[in-house]
């Protein structure tokens, strides 16, 4: 018996074992040196995460939900979004739009799962890990979603937080702007209570410039302005100040906080945004006959598409290509609004086609009241003069700093995009910016705080191995029918049951994300793949990997890729 290059050679019959048993390892043969391509692991960005307004790690949340580990899923949520029970209801969920599952039975209802997790967090009182106080205090002005989000994250960084609110209710537009059929008030109450449990202090009826001045905030290490956009745009028509002409957000506030109200019955709502929609639908529930007029077409409406759909289901008329011209009074009472028909002209600076009134197309719509819902702008009253702002926004630099030292700003007042999700992201980023500033460190925002090194490459459907997935449809979401919902403010959609949420989360492809499913290890013909010690990823032994690509082919979700081998090496 002799050895040649690590190989055992038997020279006589006697030397042979009695059966086929190995006498030496074949490891000497580094077959991996024959390789044109080599595999490597790299998680791609799932399309949902790419589109998430708050930057949640949706895939990890769904992985945990699938396994019934709801509290852990909520903790992952909390890293980006403190208020899943709110966003689970009102966020337009752009994450769902690019879902790769759409091509295979139907997209994942991410919002419904978030709704479930939010309610789970509330009913099970799931709290984020508490921070030890760092002895510093920060003032947050405004208790809307941006302010509350910042309060949450700053608390978790150890700051003691006082939130100042101009009104007597906490929540900003969450409470005064969004109707209860979309966001019940108890949900807002629960989330506010969560902040109180974290130690956040609230001071109500404190309005900047009136009974709250910068000079009173000297004890705070920093101040964050998150006052939103409280001023309504004007029509620019005579008689606009008439009692029967309402500002949309004022009307919604009255309705939402339950103040007595006399309006209608015939109400024309002017505008195509969410405020217009919310006004019209709320008025319908109060027994009015609302009608929406909008100067562009349905395609240009900035309101959430689902909301528009539900509005039409409720048979609220929406008339397009109409511009208001004149308010017609009779005996001090509004009786009609005169309008012009419009057509779409060239594009304006927003990229939308500008509505052009058509001469002589005048007509009037009889009505008892008009609601202006033309959009909101910054209410600059009471802001200190040392602060730079224009009619749209407070001017901020990198790191949410205003022109005034020690004052930061975020949310809609600081050029936010107007959604709750965006406000929450602003709140989180501003918190980190304040923290960095107080530590005198540079601030670098990370879009997805829970994922390391966000890959610019988005995972695509064609990268998946469909043999590992069954074509299946999303669950039917339980919702009130139009004729059941228009007589009150009862919430329209109910969430998923526990098992439905788990099943739906299981349907998720986990696009481009290694889930340690072990397929690659099992299929590798060279046994060159093994889990790393931490069991969160795999490593490849390139001495034996021949670059056959079987692992890439068998990865269900496109988390393994091939690259050319440097032949010179």
């Amino acid at each position, binding site marked *: 018996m002799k050895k040649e290059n690590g190989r055992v050679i*038997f020279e006589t*019959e006697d030397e*042979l*074992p*009695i*059966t*086929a*048993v*190995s*006498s030496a390892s074949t490891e000497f043969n580094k077959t991996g040196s024959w390789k044109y391509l080599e595999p490597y692991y790299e998680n791609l960005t799932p399309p949902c995460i790419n589109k998430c307004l708050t930057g949640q790690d949706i895939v990890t949340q769904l992985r945990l939900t699938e396994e019934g580990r709801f509290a852990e899923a909520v903790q992952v949520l909390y890293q980006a979004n403190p208020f899943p029970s709110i966003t689970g209801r009102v966020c337009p969920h752009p994450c769902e739009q690019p879902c790769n599952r759409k091509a295979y039975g139907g997209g994942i209802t991410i919002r419904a799962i978030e709704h479930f997790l939010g309610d789970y967090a509330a009913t099970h009182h799931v709290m984020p890990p508490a921070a030890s106080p760092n002895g510093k205090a920060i003032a947050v002005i405004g208790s809307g979603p941006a302010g509350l989000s910042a309060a949450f994250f700053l608390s978790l960084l150890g700051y003691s937080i006082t939130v100042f609110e101009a009104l007597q209710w906490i929540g900003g537009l969450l409470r005064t702007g969004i109707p209860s059929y979309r966001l019940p008030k108890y949900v807002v109450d629960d989330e506010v209570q969560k902040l109180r449990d974290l130690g956040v202090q609230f001071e109500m009826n404190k309005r900047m410039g009136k009974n709250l001045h910068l000079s009173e905030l000297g004890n705070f290490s920093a101040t964050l302005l998150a006052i939103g956009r409280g001023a309504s745009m004007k029509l620019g028509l005579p008689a606009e100040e008439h009692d029967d002409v309402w500002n949309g957000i004022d009307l919604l506030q009255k309705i939402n906080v339950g103040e007595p109200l006399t309006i209608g019955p015939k109400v024309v709502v002017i505008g195509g945004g969410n405020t217009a929609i919310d006004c019209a639908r709320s008025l319908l529930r109060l027994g009015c006959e609302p009608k929406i007029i909008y100067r562009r077409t349905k395609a240009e409406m900035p309101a959430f598409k689902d909301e528009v759909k539900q509005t039409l289901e409720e048979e609220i008329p929406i008339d397009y290509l109409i511009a208001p011209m004149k308010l017609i009074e009779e005996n001090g009472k509004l009786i009609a609004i005169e309008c012009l028909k419009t057509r779409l002209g060239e594009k304006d600076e927003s990229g939308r086609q500008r509505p052009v009134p058509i001469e002589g197309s005048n007509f009037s719509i009889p009505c008892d009241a008009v609601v202006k819902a033309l959009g909101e702008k910054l209410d600059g009253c009471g802001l200190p003069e040392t602060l730079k702002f224009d009619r749209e926004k407070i001017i901020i630099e990198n790191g949410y700093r205003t022109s005034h030292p020690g004052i930061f700003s975020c949310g809609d007042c600081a050029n936010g995009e107007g959604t709750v999700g965006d406000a929450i992201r602003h709140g989180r980023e501003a918190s980190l910016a304040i923290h960095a500033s107080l530590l005198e460190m540079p601030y670098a925002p990370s879009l997805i705080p829970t994922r390391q090194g966000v890959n610019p490459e988005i995972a695509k459907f064609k990268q998946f191995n469909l043999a590992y997935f069954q074509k299946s449809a999303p669950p039917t979401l339980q919702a009130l029918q139009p004729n059941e919902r228009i007589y009150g403010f009862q919430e329209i959609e109910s969430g998923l049951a526990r098992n439905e949420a788990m099943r739906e989360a299981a349907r998720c492809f986990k696009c481009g994300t290694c889930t340690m499913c072990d397929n690659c290890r099992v299929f590798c013909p060279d046994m060159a793949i093994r889990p790393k010690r931490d069991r969160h990823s795999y490593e490849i032994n390139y001495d034996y990997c021949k670059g056959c690509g079987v692992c890439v082919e068998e990865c269900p979700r496109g988390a393994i890729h091939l690259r050319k081998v440097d032949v010179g090496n």
Partner: protein
Amino acid sequence: MEQALREEKALLLSGNQAAAYGAYLSRVQVIAAYPITPQTTIIETLADIMTKADWKHKFINVESEHSAMACCIGASMGGVRAYTATSAQGLALMHELLHWASGARLPIVLVNVNRAMAPGWSIWSDQNDSLSQRDTGWIQLYCESPQEVLDTVIQGFMVAEKVNVPVMVVEDAFILSHTSEVVELPDQAVIDRMLPPRAPAFRLDMEQPAAFGGLLGPEYYQEVRAKLHKAMEEAGRVLVNVDALWQKNFGRSYGIVEPYRCEDADLVLVTSGAISSTSKIVIDQLRRQGRKIGRLKIKLFRPFPFQEIQRLLGDVPKVAIIDRNCSYGHHGIFFQEIKSALYGSKKGDRPKLYGYILGLGGRDVTINTLRQVIDLTSERDEPDPETIWVK
């Protein structure tokens, strides 16, 4: 004997119960089996012993005989003593793995209860099931009494572990498997001396990992197989020694073949299995009548006892061979084997061979059947070219 019975050194046992006690006394460590009539009472008896005796073992329930043998192979590779039992279609289902067990040189002992192959369905005895496995590389031992079944299971392990070749112990369905007789239980302490715990030549070992049963190229395959063949030949010699040791310790022996009143015989009846037992009565009857007739029982079918056959039958004028089986399109299988053994014999005047097929599918082989065979042989100077099927 009644004293042994009273002291429980002997029990009233059927062949199947004896097969189970053989496994128990061999201190088998792993049993994997799937029930099939008429083997079932082996499993039942094993279960019965397990509940009563302090027996360190693992019984693996399986979903088929193929899996049963696979489990035995795994266990035996792991270095422990493995045992199974089956019958007919069950043995046929194991076929591939029978090759594997012998090729991997695993000393497994299997009890096969000889049952006719279907269709038509038959639960009764004949030998076609075990003889169909002739070339799988298993030692085959045919028994004629429950006592012999028990002894042969233990002897089987002794031989198997010496030469690293698996052993098939064969008993007739019902005629032995379900017939109870007083069976002596060999003393456990003596058995333990004769059959110490298994010391495998190689085994699956986490400390010394190796690949088993892997690719064996044309440069080595034939040599490794030649080793199996040599081990088979060696097995015959080992069994002779084991049997002699048995005689010394327990006063019983069986031989690899058993001649009965063959001296000066001018006609020898060749038998195997339970028929060997009944045939002794016939020989005694005919000898009383002054007829020179003997009987040769073949216990060891693989390796085939060429030398013994040549020595014992070479000078006999007429040999009547009884086959409870048939190699369709040829003769009875024992007939072929004996014919081939004698063809190479140095004796120029080979005996005349008369082949008889009888008792298939459990047909009762009575004294009259056997006398018919002897009469047919005596009255013919030359054998018929065709094997005679006896009713």
